């Protein structure tokens, strides 16, 4: 019986997309909660949302969008046989991810410094809708940030694999799948940004 040892490129992509669906639904559960509580506490969500820094939020959005861009470019570069450019672009993506995380650290730090964190006495004195808003804020941006962190490591690993020629212009599905993961992380933020920073 002959052995088909070549990798199944399409199969690998199907597998990755299926995994992405699980991520969409994982965050989806939190979006269920957000949508219900926005419906229930529109005023408080607006007020609490104004306490978030729109400049940080917008900057982070642009940073993540650009990192998605550099990630997509890195795949094109590798497909065209430009290994060096691919590696540069992957590195840029990682750097932008770190910028995002650093901004998050500053934002969270500021909030915590002001006594706004889960179960804090300051927070518990606020109206219920605001307690819920910040509860959702920490859980959703926290889970998202965790995914950014994990994504950075995956990009690092793939960068090393490209460097070692284990991922090449004829077998690049690992970079493509990493890109898919990264774009999903970007896409979640695309929804988080207006829902937390621009609540009218």
């Amino acid at each position: 019986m002959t052995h088909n040892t070549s990798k199944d490129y399409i199969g690998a992509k199907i597998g990755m997309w299926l995994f992405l669906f699980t991520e969409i639904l994982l965050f989806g559960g939190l979006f269920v909660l957000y949508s219900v509580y926005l419906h229930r506490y529109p005023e408080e969500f607006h007020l609490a949302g104004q306490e978030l820094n729109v400049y940080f939020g917008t900057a982070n959005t642009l940073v993540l969008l650009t990192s998605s861009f550099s990630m997509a470019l890195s795949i094109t570069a590798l497909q065209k046989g430009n290994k060096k450019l691919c590696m540069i672009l992957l590195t840029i993506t990682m750097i932008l991810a770190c910028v995002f995380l650093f901004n998050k650290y500053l934002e969270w730090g500021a909030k915590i410094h002001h006594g706004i964190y889960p179960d804090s006495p300051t927070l518990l004195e606020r109206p219920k809708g605001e307690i819920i808003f910040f509860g959702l804020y920490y859980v959703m941006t926290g889970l998202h940030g965790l995914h950014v962190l994990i994504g950075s490591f995956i990009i690092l690993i793939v960068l090393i694999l490209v460097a070692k020629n284990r991922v090449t212009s004829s077998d690049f599905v690992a970079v493509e799948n990493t890109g898919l993961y990264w774009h999903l992380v970007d896409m979640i933020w695309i929804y988080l940004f207006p829902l937390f920073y621009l609540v009218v």
Partner: protein
Amino acid sequence: MNSSESKTLSFWEDDGRFSGIFSWIFTTDHKRIGILYLYSVLSLFAVGVVIGLLMRLELIAPGSTIVGAQTYNAFFTVHGVIMIFLFVIPSIPASLGNLFLPIQLGAEDVAFPRINLLSWWLYITGLILILISLFTGQGAPDTGWTFYVPFSEYTTTNVNVAVLGVFILGFSSILTGLNFITTIHRMRMPEMKLTQIPLFGWSLYATGWIQVLATPILGITVLLIFVERTLGIGLFDPAKGGDPVLYQHLFWIYSHPAVYIMVVPAMGVVTEIIPVFARKHIFGYKAIALSSLGIAFAGSLVWAHHMFTSGMSDTAVMIFSFLTFIVAIPSAVKIFNWVATLYKGSIVLEPPLLYALAFIFLFSIGGLTGLVVGSAGTDIHVHDTYFVVGHFHYTIFGGTVFGMFGGLHYWFPKIYGKMYNKKVATTAWGILFIGFNVLYFPMLVLGIMGMPRRYFDYLPEYQLGHVISTVGSWIVAVGLILMFYNLYRGIKKGEPAGKNPWNAATLEWTTQSPPPKLNFIKEPQLTRGPYDYKGIEDDTQYQ
């Protein structure tokens, strides 16, 4: 377990890179992973059965009989967690699915063999965490397997560890589904179109989608319990603006589709068995394939029928009750088609068919009682009573588990190359069937009489029903012991079985028993449909 027909090593003997136990726990062979899962889930089933027997023993008389209230609460919680997350949900897909899906498709393995192994390792990790939660700290969780807030937020028992275990088990389930979906799309032999795969494959396909799309919601839900308990976030806490009913929504958004993860593969097994033992092509292949997808989809729309008495809006009560009736339709399609297959067939009454017939009978009772609970008006009366307990045991145990037993008896000769004693198997089946109804039918009556579930004490008027039910549990235990002992004897001392003792037509019956590591010795030829028995006794590929 020597293959008697050729010199090719069977998958039992073909160790690969490692030796001894490592050739099993580091295997990427889907058949070995299937066996690892089979023995794992059956072991956990045994544990769950023992807890169930202890529960029934406690309930034989009012008041404290063998344990106190706290222990009883832990009993039913752990019974549920083990049976659902460690037994039924993985059961058929991870064991029989892993063993036979690739072979039925003419493939060498699943799409992602290493992820398959990871699936099993995650299962074991989840199992260890659950075990830890039983024996450390303040003891086993007492919240019920549903972990409802607010109690799950402040009970001091080991909820944190247990939900972490559940999270990991969910991930294990997701990976199995993901693997099977990709396998069915990508690993079929070239000539086999999607409309020619065995219907077991279609059932695993539909199940895979539920696993991929619904399980993550369970993931986030248990994560939120963890976060509530450790950080006091308050998303379900009314004092902090939260809504506990939202917890129930999130929980049941997964846990209702989960019951279809449980039953759809069993329906797939029944669909494999019935044509073989009626010697007749399955009636309505396309309808059955579509009904699997239909059940998966419709089952995702009805979750709040678990919440009729929770305080949600009347609008939701009515809409979800209405939608619930729709799910019955694709299920009924299957039952009609199975019966139509049997009609005017040449019935061969062997143990696999006995289990398939029992499935139809017991699942039908389960399904019909489902209409009672799914109908909002009647549910008000029976919600959280023993009627519900009877309903879900008829569907899950009478359905899925009997389906799995049928699958075990059907595929046993292929897995082990031997045949079990059919007379003993039939006797065990009879004892099981009778015991099952003695155990669970009284629950339907008790429920309507008003006996609440999850209560370790009760009024004297309920005692007769409980006594009968407990006796039934002993009969079931005898049946299970006899059934498994008979299979065990078959493994050790059974008569050698040939390639195709049932004269079935799916591709696993063209290879040796047990199959070799790469599934086929010669490349399989697709010369007949999966339910085409014409001339199969003379077809050299199948004899």
